[in-house]
């Protein structure tokens, strides 16, 4: 067992990925590409036990996510249990499956917050931007969210294929009466990593989108708050990912695997514990996998002697692994990393003039949509 002598605080943030099932097939999804290989979903009673055990440890912010959590029919009972335990309950949904009857039941069960995501994939992008079927669904769900007195919080994942439409996206958000809009650039894990070459925007695209967003902010004033999350590839210092692994964040995947971040299952050499076999307390405080990246003993140079190591914890372990093959390396986003050229090369490729990427162009690397069949095919393959 790996020991960690420092003080470990509570897992304040608990994210339950209730299912990997999803009616959408987004090319930028961070779910693992081999999700089809994972075991059966936890049943209702097991999720209830996880809620009780984590709450006893001090978990207080609860995210219910997936996949699309609403494909399960027990979300209402899980919300009711979580609310009675004292969690602040956030539902992260595409809106697909959120009928008036369900939102009424969720409200009655004590749901605190709904984040509605625009998970437009390229297959749906035209539909979405041309205000057709997808718009009708989102507009209906948005009006339900307002009718039930929730703040209207929209999350839109940006990438090369839609970032030039940020003005149209914001106008749509305004028509839907959004109070908060998060324009979150894609983070490259899972399906998004697979599709990175098609999804990473150029620096010019990014600058234009930020300018458009700023002009929009000035026009709407305080009516709508807009958060623009820059893709970390364009930063010179890495994000303080998860505030350090094993610090405040605990994810439980559909099959019960406990992870210190949603993407961590990919990390080599670690066996992540499962809530079917261990208590949340044992997992959080005693498991080797959760202790491994706590503190600073795992760090290599340049992180080990870096004055900023306590600020960003060396960045993201998954990104370090995906790009350099060693999760203990500095996140290559950092311009002090000896592997930083991997980022600058990706940016250079993204900035070369190219035809508008198209799913239909047979001579390009195709976009891989997140679906069961693709996942089965990918599950047999080692991650790149």
């Amino acid at each position, binding site marked *: 067992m790996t020991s960690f002598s420092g003080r470990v605080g*509570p897992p*304040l943030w608990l994210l339950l990925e209730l299912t990997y099932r999803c009616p959408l097939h987004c090319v930028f999804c961070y779910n693992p590409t081999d999700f089809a290989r994972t075991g059966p979903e936890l049943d209702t009673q097991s999720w209830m036990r996880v809620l009780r055990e984590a709450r006893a*440890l*001090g978990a*207080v*912010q609860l*995210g219910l996510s997936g996949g699309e959590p609403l494909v399960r029919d027990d979300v209402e009972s899980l919300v009711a249990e979580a609310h009675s335990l*004292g969690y*602040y309950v*956030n539902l992260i949904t595409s809106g697909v499956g959120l009928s008036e009857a369900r939102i009424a039941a969720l409200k009655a069960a004590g749901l*605190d*917050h709904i*984040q509605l995501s625009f998970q437009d994939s390229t297959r749906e992008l035209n539909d979405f931007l041309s205000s057709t079927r997808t718009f009708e669904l989102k507009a209906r769900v948005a009006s339900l969210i307002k009718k039930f007195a929730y*703040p209207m*919080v929209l999350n839109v994942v940006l990438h090369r294929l839609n970032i030039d439409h940020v003005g149209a996206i914001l106008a749509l958000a305004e028509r839907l009466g959004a109070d*908060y809009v998060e324009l979150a650039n894609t983070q490259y894990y899972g399906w998004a990593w697979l599709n990175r070459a098609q999804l990473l925007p150029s620096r010019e695209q990014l600058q234009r989108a930020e300018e458009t967003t700023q002009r929009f902010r000035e026009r709407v004033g305080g009516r709508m708050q807009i958060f623009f999350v820059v893709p970390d590839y364009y930063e010179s210092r890495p994000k303080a990912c998860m505030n350090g692994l094993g610090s405040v964040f605990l994810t439980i995947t559909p099959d019960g695997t406990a992870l210190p971040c949603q993407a961590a299952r990919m990390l080599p050499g670690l066996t992540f514990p499962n809530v079917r076999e261990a208590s949340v307390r044992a997992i959080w405080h005693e498991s080797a996998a959760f202790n491994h990246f706590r503190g600073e003993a795992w760090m290599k140079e340049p992180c080990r002697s870096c004055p900023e190591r306590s600020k960003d914890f060396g960045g993201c372990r998954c990104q370090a692994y995906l790009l350099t093959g060693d999760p203990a390396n500095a996140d290559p986003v950092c311009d002090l990393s000896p592997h930083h050229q991997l980022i600058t090369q990706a940016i250079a490729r993204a900035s070369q003039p190219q035809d508008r990427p198209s799913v239909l162009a047979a001579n390009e690397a195709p976009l891989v949509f997140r679906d069961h069949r693709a996942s089965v095919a990918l599950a047999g393959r080692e991650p790149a």
Partner: protein
Amino acid sequence: MSAVPLSAKPAIGAGFRLQWEPAQQAHVLLYPEGMVKLNGSAGAIMSRCDGVRTLGEIVADLEHTYGATGLADDVIAFVALAMAREWLEIQA
């Protein structure tokens, strides 16, 4: 920053929830996908802001509880700060 009158009845702002967290030994303010951990005095003030008691009553209660006097200015300053952050609102 305009002074809040002692007759005002502050309440926890819409969209926030205040609760005591034993694991953190602190009052926390919860909001969508976020949390503020309050220090002892902020927690003591905000846990009394129920929209029923006036600010004057809250000050008197705090002075009684903590055996102190002359807390009004500090409490009023904190309430103004908390209102600016929408943690507190004054009931109409």
